[in-house]
């Protein structure tokens, strides 16, 4: 099993009446709610936490891309990843990922990911999301019905740029480049491991299987609801005649660990509530631009998780419901371990993205939960797939003789970090 510590980087100061006063945390969230001076501390704190996760033994540290979003203040995950690459040396750096249809031209992604792979000594995991409708269509203006086509072309261009040694001309529908010449190239050959975050599009499953990419299911509704979707994915894997390595799939889960079940509720309930009440308050009209999802996917029943109906559900969720229905996994190390076993076996996943910072959780609680997970949960979950031991097809392959630049920054590695 591989565990990646993931930080969505939520803005921690959404007001108590955010839900009542504003229609959406995403796309048209008022910019007056963002305070750049405070953001100095927030960004540095979040980056310290990611570095701390490596220190306590997580296999990977993960970042992602959102735009105009109050729960993800990371329009450029590559900037964060570059910072992490200089202050860590063991953990995989999982950028899940760059919305490749949004880069003009997408050769930019091939270049920046190659830079990250070089700086980090071959530790990059490269994610290629289609991107949510909120980010891709409403914030970045891509035409919904053409988004997937543009994504497919961007993917082809990036992979050819990495794989081919000769300069080539690319005559695409969306990109025409006379001299494609990716300089630099990634250390990992033929390319870093590719993860495709999906929200339930059936086409995405086939795309992953066509190329043997990892399928990463990222949702905030937890492992019990995720099972239905991943069952569909594994059916597709079987139908395509592929091996059933659990490392083909990853799942993101919100996790809160306390010394006891009671402590977990006492410490974390308010921050989980902040996340589900304020951070997921998304205007229904932005959930799914018409044409963004294919008709096939809609007929398959994969409506967006951000529909108006879910908007009614999120604020009514109690700590008990969130736990009982698996939105979150919270409790003592023993409780969390048991539920994690259920998640891993039930979904058949070899990678978990651990969302251990939740909503407006302060630094000390985040580190407490992270440390407990690393010390008292993670070791017990290591070998849950003995029959697939050594299957590293979806993990990074760092240089043996890479640098350890963070060792000059000992102070930053102490508990508590440099920033508040």
């Amino acid at each position, binding site marked *: 099993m591989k565990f990646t510590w993931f930080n969505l980087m939520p803005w921690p100061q959404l007001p108590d009446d955010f839900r009542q006063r504003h229609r959406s945390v995403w796309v048209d969230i008022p910019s007056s709610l963002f305070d750049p001076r405070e953001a100095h501390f927030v960004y540095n704190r979040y980056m310290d936490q990611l570095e701390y996760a490596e220190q306590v033994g997580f296999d990977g540290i993960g970042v992602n891309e959102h735009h105009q979003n109050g729960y993800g203040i990371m329009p450029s995950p590559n900037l964060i990843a570059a910072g992490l690459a200089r202050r860590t040396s063991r953990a995989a750096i999982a950028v899940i990922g760059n919305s490749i249809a949004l880069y003009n031209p997408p050769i930019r992604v091939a270049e920046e990911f190659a830079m990250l792979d070089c700086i980090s000594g071959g530790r990059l995991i490269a994610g290629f999301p289609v991107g949510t409708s909120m980010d891709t269509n409403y914030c970045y203006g891509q035409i*919904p019905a053409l988004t997937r086509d543009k994504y497919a072309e961007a993917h082809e261009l990036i992979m050819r740029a990495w794989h081919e040694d000769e300069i080539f001309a690319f005559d695409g529908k969306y990109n025409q480049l006379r001299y494609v010449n990716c300089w630099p190239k990634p250390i990992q050959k033929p390319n870093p491991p590719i993860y495709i975050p999906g929200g339930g599009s059936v086409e995405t499953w086939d795309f992953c299987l066509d190329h043997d990419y990892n399928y990463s299911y990222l949702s905030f509704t937890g492992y019990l609801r995720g099972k239905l979707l991943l069952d569909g994915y594994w059916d597709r894997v079987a139908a395509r005649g592929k091996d059933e390595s659990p490392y083909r799939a990853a799942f993101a889960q919100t996790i809160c660990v306390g010394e006891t079940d009671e402590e977990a509720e006492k410490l974390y309930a308010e921050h989980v509530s902040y996340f589900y009440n304020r951070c997921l308050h998304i205007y229904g009209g932005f959930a799914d631009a018409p044409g963004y999802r294919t008709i096939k996917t809609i007929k398959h029943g994969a409506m967006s998780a951000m529909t108006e109906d879910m908007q009614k559900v999120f604020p009514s969720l109690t700590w008990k419901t969130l736990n009982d229905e698996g939105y979150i996994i919270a409790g003592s190390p023993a409780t969390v371990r048991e539920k994690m076993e259920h998640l891993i076996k039930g979904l058949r996943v070899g990678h978990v993205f651990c969302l251990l910072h939740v909503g407006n959780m302060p630094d000390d609680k985040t580190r407490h939960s992270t440390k407990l997970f690393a010390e008292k949960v993670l070791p017990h979950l290591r070998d849950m797939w003995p029959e697939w031991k050594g299957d590293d097809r979806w993990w990074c392959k760092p240089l043996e003789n890479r640098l350890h630049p963070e060792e000059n920054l000992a102070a930053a590695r102490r508990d508590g970090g440099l920033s508040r």
Partner: protein
Amino acid sequence: MNARTIETRRGCKVRVLEAGSGAPLVFLHGAGGLFPANPFLEKLAERYRVLAPELPGYGESTGEELLEDMLDFALHGWDVVDALGLEKPHLVGHSMGGMIAAEMACLAPHDLGKLVLAAPAGLWIPEHPIADLFSFLPHEFAQRLFHDRARGEDLLTGGLDLRNMDALIEFYIGNARRLGMAGKILFPIPNRRLSKRIYRLRAPTLLVWGVSDALIPPLYAKRWRELVPQAELAEIGAAGHMVPYEQPDAFVAAITRFVG
């Protein structure tokens, strides 16, 4: 009205409603498509040979993947005219259909009779942005598109109860298909630089606008008339953006007065 399916040379299969005799008049529908009942077309058919093609992605018409940008849409319009064997038809376009008709008239200014644009899309005034139709919730459409919201609700849903999950999914699928297609020329801003080409528009032109249009406000008519000096304007009371459906008699009267 009769319906038949034609195939364009590009390969799109297009369902066309047809009725009447006389001078050919092609009606191009808006982003919502044709409704099950279209009384204004029947009234027009008392005087003209009316042909109302459904754009690929709408109703039973297919081949939407063959049309990707404004030029494709405008050429498709002429492909349909050719497949129907029409000579110099009058073009009547509503909303998105008005945008397409205007583009057709700029591409081939001598190939049409008269041009009628009902609340056409295609221009953008930064100080007066057009509402974002692509972020409307299902219940918002009637409110934005009709002067009489309650009647609009009935017309839009065709009697479906959107509180019913199956009905909602059916609406959602149809909406995704139609607006997905419309988005190719309307998303995120319904402006594909028609204003650069509009000097080519020579046809006698009538603009028709509902005075309570809350989607493309009537002040857009002024901008159209600046760009198309020969255009006349007919404003219709008690009508919103869906003027052909809300005031079919007044809409048809304005057209017949202008087209002759």
